[in-house]
């Protein structure tokens, strides 16, 4: 029973994109908090302006 639970936990960790290969180094409660925070952290995602992207691409073309 214990073995099965361990397997389940490891599987859950490995399939979660947030937890890269060494996610197990964190305590289980920390892993859970990170997983819970993931959607909210994703909401904080921002993008640079189109002007900046155009400047970078124009610069690359000049070289």
């Amino acid at each position, binding site marked *: 029973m214990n073995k099965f639970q361990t397997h389940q936990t490891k599987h859950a960790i490995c399939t979660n994109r947030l937890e890269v290969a060494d996610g197990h180094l964190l305590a289980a409660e920390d892993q859970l908090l990170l997983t819970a925070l993931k959607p909210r952290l994703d909401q904080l995602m921002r*993008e640079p302006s189109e002007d900046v992207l155009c400047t970078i691409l124009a610069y690359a073309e000049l070289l």
Partner: protein
Amino acid sequence: MNTHKNLQTRTDQELIHEFISGYQPCLEVLIARHKSKIYTSIYLLVKDSYLAEDIFQETFIKVIHTLQAGKYNEEGKFLPWVIRIAHNLVIDYFRKQKRNPVITNVDGFDIFDVIQFYDEPLENMMIREQSHQDLKRMIQLLPTEQKEVLIMRHYGDLSFKEIADITGVSINTALGRMRYALNNLRKMMVSPVLVNK
């Protein structure tokens, strides 16, 4: 023949190879693929969208130079490498600031905060915005070392080994900083002062 649609399915390594060979659209696809994570990683550290854009631009200028000079290490992953460059530029900025402190206006307004959820009912929008601002404020309150680890882990998909290398500490220290960051966030989440502010 390469089309933009074809390029979307290429790996970062394939895009880098083609860009080095002179096919410019590959750079556009690489930037589009990773721009949000890189920009957000910078923005959450410097807390100013104009400054974050300057550092983002400078980061990619360094990326372009390194790729075209053939100095990119094939063994590494592209995103962690770019995040490392961005992180070093942020550190350089803070060092310069420390030497020559100036008073700047940190912009607190972003039009995308307002228009991003315009399709939702006003109440949902306000609740979402509140939650969005709460977490942003909590992250800003973390000590820089803890904030860095959290940002690199989430937005950069970096391993603790990579975070340790970039920040110049041991893996144990990087892990410890992450634990402290999460503990501090936990405390802030139950703090009525922060939650009801």
